[in-house]
């Protein structure tokens, strides 16, 4: 057991954790807003909006993230029109492209989660609210949103954690996150498992903390649903 190697590997991977977490946090955050917009468009009843939303979800859920990253970073930059445009300073940078691509991808998944959650709101509750005279934004704020939020949480925590692991693909666009650095160390030194085990442990701890946070939120929001059994 080469402890010196384990320690240096660990330090290098922790340094790379910053890349992983920043891409993750920014893409989930912005993705949520994009997803809200897409979900609204999907359910709006306005045909063109619905169509655009469905196309968006189709493309960004259907194509592998690797392909999306490739197209956003390499594909867009191959067009002289893009390079001359006002977006180039933004798109030139690998971090921006990676975050943008991940945000677009997670937004598609999050939008589907929102849709499922909204569909799960019991019709009876909405009827009762309407009977009391609630409508429009008040109805959404007091009845639909809180219920949908609680129903979305399990699937949402899944997606958030998935995104942490999805950031492992950004080495395609020259960003070196934890997994990529671990693989790089492995290729340089040919030590097969140690870098991967350390990386795995780091990811596990991060994801465990996120999962626990969500469980805490879930229980805090729904104390009446705890310990239900068949």
């Amino acid at each position, binding site marked *: 057991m080469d402890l010196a190697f384990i320690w240096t590997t660990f330090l290098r991977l922790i340094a790379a954790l910053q890349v992983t977490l920043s891409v993750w946090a920014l893409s989930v955050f912005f993705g949520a807003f994009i997803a809200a917009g897409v979900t609204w468009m999907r*359910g709006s009843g306005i045909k063109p909006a619905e169509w655009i939303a469905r196309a968006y979800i*189709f*493309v960004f*859920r*259907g*194509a*592998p*993230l*690797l*392909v*999306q990253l*490739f*197209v956003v970073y*390499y*594909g867009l930059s*191959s067009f002289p029109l893009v390079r001359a445009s006002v977006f180039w300073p933004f798109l030139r940078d690998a971090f921006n492209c990676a975050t943008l691509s991940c945000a677009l991808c997670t937004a598609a*998944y999050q939008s*589907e*989660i929102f*849709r*499922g959650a*909204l*569909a*799960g*709101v*019991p*019709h009876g509750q*909405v009827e009762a609210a309407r009977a009391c005279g609630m409508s429009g934004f008040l109805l*959404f704020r007091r009845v*639909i949103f809180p219920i*949908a939020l609680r*129903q979305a*949480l*399990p*699937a949402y*925590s*899944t*997606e958030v*954690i*998935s995104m942490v*692991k999805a950031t*492992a693909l950004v080495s395609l666009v020259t960003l070196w996150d934890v*997994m990529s650095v671990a693989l790089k160390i492995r290729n340089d030194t040919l030590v097969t498992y140690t870098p*991967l085990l350390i*990386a*795995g442990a780091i*990811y*596990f*701890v*991060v*994801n*465990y903390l996120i*999962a626990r946070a969500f469980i805490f939120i879930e229980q805090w929001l729904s104390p009446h*649903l705890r*310990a*239900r*059994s*068949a």
Partner: protein
Amino acid sequence: MTALGFGERGWGPALLYGAVMTVLVSIAGLAIGAALGSLVAWAKLSGVRIAAAIGGGYAAIFRGLPELLVVYFVYFGSSATLTGLDHLLGGEGFLGVPGFAAGALAVGVISGSYQAEVFRGAFLAIAKGELEAARAVGMGRWLMFRRIIGPQVLRFALPGLGNLWQVALKDSSLISVTGLAELMRTSQVAAGSTHQPFTFYVAGGALYLAITSISDRVFEFAEARATRGMRREAH
């Protein structure tokens, strides 16, 4: 364009074969995942603390680990076990678990940990009153599961499962270490051999979209049938 075609130098057939492999291994993985996921969801909801702890532990481990690592450990771990058994019987050399089996198992083990949450959330969405009424009427546990819990869990879980099918498809693109010639690996091999990364990434992506398009239809149909008679609000 000839590189993509079906001629002698064309990668068309190889890509299509990869697409078929991807679909098959994802279906197998999803099935394994459904079995594991419902077990874990049941364990967590049962109220028996040991079962919930084990189920929770499984879910935590496989949700927390990067998929690539799980694929490695499943593949090399199961191959080492198989080789060990083989040596026990007098063989020598390396006996690998077939790529498809290892890939499906890895995808399934990961998928199961997520499906547990989907099933759990779907179960919690069932109106409490229905369960109380069923018990009041004297329904036994199996009958209650068959008539009330099962169908409703399926209904509520479908959007989530649709998501997880996509995830299984994506996870299947990580099993190239097992040697299975699925779509992502074939695209990358073609890209490296012909120095045309753009062509093959986009072609591979287009095939993934085609698979998604077809499976979207299937899920829509399933959702429509499953939610017959349910009034849905605020969608």
